[in-house]
């Protein structure tokens, strides 16, 4: 099977969207699942974008939630500031997403310059540190808006913003943002997933993408044939962080409150787990793994207090199973038994020829 078959990827996503929409119109989707659709989309974009850094570029990043956080906060600030100037939701949502993505992309660029000089474990640790730095900066950031425009302060409370009468505080330091109007819908989330897939898949399949993968496979060899290391590394890293920013905006606009503490190290690791479980460099895998792992804790609610323990055990079992050759062979044999071998071979032959 070829990695990143685009028909498979787009097909799964679009089919899932249509099925869910049909079920929703039939009233057959639980509130529990309906409430998770937007976060699932946001996490899918996160996982796909992180896969670009970890799987395609081959650099371990442990601070991906930091970019999500930048996108979340700047996107919401943009959204709330534009509330009176631009009442229709669709353009406001799109502008917020673009603002979130732009800020996260710029942060990715600035952080990328020093970070991408490093390799391997060192790079991982520095990204972790940057993720925490972003969290702590947002923790002491105050932003408010009044008729004169946006006010920004790094002091210890929101009074320092000197807001006019009638002005509102948007980011209130460690308390984050409260009172966000919910704009994200499943359709917006789905559209963002498609855009992210389009960007990432096209990047991978482009000339630049091949250069990025060459860097991953052998940096010295790639450099020796004239590939600009910094340029291509930055390209992957900035794209990845900008998409994470857009995911952050989508995520934040789905909840009435967000705090910087939400986007901590644990969230970065969570997204990394999605990527690793789905397979490094495997975009389809990231999508499936994310969906399953976001829904799983909710399905395990019946276990009450033991739910996170069960979740962890399931995670370990899945990781072991997917990396076990015997298990894989048994699974393959099982599939072969159910479906006649001839059929698979013929079908595989035809699609491989097409793509």
């Amino acid at each position, binding site marked *: 099977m070829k990695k990143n078959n685009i028909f498979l990827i787009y097909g799964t996503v679009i089919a899932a969207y249509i099925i869910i929409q049909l079920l929703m119109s039939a009233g057959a989707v639980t509130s529990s699942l309906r409430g998770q659709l937007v976060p699932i989309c946001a996490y899918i974009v996160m996982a796909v974008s992180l896969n670009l850094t970890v799987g395609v570029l081959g650099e371990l990043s442990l601070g991906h939630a930091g970019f999500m956080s930048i996108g979340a906060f700047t996107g919401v600030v943009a959204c709330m500031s534009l509330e009176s100037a631009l009442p229709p939701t669709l353009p406001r949502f799109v502008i917020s997403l673009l603002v979130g993505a732009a800020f996260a992309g710029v942060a990715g660029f600035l952080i990328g310059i020093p970070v991408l000089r490093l390799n391997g474990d060192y790079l991982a640790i520095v990204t972790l540190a940057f993720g925490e730095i972003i969290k702590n900066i947002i923790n002491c950031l105050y932003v408010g808006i009044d008729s004169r425009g946006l006010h920004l302060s790094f002091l210890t409370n929101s009074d320092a913003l000197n807001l006019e009468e009638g002005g509102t505080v948007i980011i209130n330091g460690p308390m984050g943002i409260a009172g966000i109007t919910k704009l994200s819908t499943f359709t917006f989330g789905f559209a963002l997933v498609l855009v992210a897939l389009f960007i990432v898949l096209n990047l991978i399949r482009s000339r630049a993408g091949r250069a990025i993968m060459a860097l991953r496979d052998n940096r010295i060899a790639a450099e020796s044939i004239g590939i600009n290391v910094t340029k291509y590394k930055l390209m992957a890293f900035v794209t990845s962080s900008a998409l994470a920013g857009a995911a952050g905006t989508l995520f934040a606009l789905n909840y009435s409150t967000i*705090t910087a503490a939400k986007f901590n190290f644990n969230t970065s690791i969570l997204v990394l787990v999605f990527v690793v479980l789905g397979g490094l460099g495997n975009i389809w895998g990231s999508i499936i793994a994310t969906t399953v792992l976001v829904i799983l804790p909710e399905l395990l609610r019946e276990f009450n207090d033991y739910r996170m323990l069960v979740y962890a055990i399931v995670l370990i079992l899945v990781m072991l199973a997917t990396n076990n050759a015997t298990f894989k062979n048994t699974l393959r044999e099982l599939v072969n038994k159910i479906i006649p071998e001839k059929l698979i071979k013929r079908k595989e032959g035809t699609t491989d020829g097409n793509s």
Partner: protein
Amino acid sequence: MKLKRIICIAISLVLVAALAAGCSANEKKGESGAFKIGGTGPLTGVAAIYGTAAMNGAQIAVDEINAMGGIKFELKYEDDEHDAEKAVNAYNTLKDWGMQIFLGSVTSTPAVATSAEAFNDRIFSLTPSASSTDVTKGKDNMFQMCFADPNQGTASAQYIADKNLGTKIAVIYKNDDPYSKGIYNTFAEKAAELNLEIVSTTTFTDDSQTDFNVQLLDAKDKGADLIFLPMYYTPASLIFQQAKAMGYAPKYFGVDGMDGILTLENFDTSLAEGVILLTPFNADSNDERTVNFVNKYKELFDEIPNQFAADGYDCIYALKAALEAAECKPSMTASELCEKLIGAFTTMKFDGLTGDSMTWAANGEVSKSPKGMVIQNGAYVGLD
């Protein structure tokens, strides 16, 4: 390849169908003639002690009321891990279960998220202990059983000034916690108004809540004789310990988050000797209902109930009173109940464990008077 794709789609279909299968009972009204009450709280994780206490308190009240005859309740709590995202998931799960009245979330950040959902869905909410003003702001169907944060800060400053508890005050608060910071802000304002001298203000965050030597040294150097600790008791217990280790013995003044410190596992209660806290609930009160509640709680859960448990208990009784006053029936839908309960809550007076003749303003804030308590010989004793 194509076949595999079809298989994948088929699998996802089956999965989705399985998910949807659970929802056939969706939006059903209470069948057994009981009101379905749902709540979310941190039942696991760092803040678990608050969630469990509120849940246990509410459960005791539900059992008592069900035994009485008349109105019947069915209570279900879901874990939110003190996280807004998980809280919304938990809330949606409760909605699938058929929740008619929402007990809100126990802690503030999740409560802000779930209250917005409940507002959109028109489900009446009464939170036992989410004290941030953002929880109730702009939502007519959201009520609080506890003091709002600003009131706690003001009341604490007033209390310290009235009782002349300290002349030089130090404050240590948690910078990334809305609860702690909200109380600090109003405390500082009120203290300035009352001419209380705050000599040292230091902060900590979630990442630095194990070492308080810097904060304590600052307070000590500036000669503070009273330290105001608007925080939950886990960091407070470390502050007591580290202050003792450096030979510094100021008076301590806490708020309702301090309540429960005596039941903290492996905590040397002698460290908390003399700590004053402002809380609406006093487990040592001789009031008959409180004694009953405390005994029952001890019997069932083997510990002394804290204020969160009492808040949970009061919530259920307040709901009972309001449901009776508005003549509600379990067969009503959540939005019908919501409108009736809003009317009942803004007009009624309620006597509970955490205060007498409580009333609610239209903005959802409760009005009741805090009780000053001091820890003596390992127990809470009323100050007044």
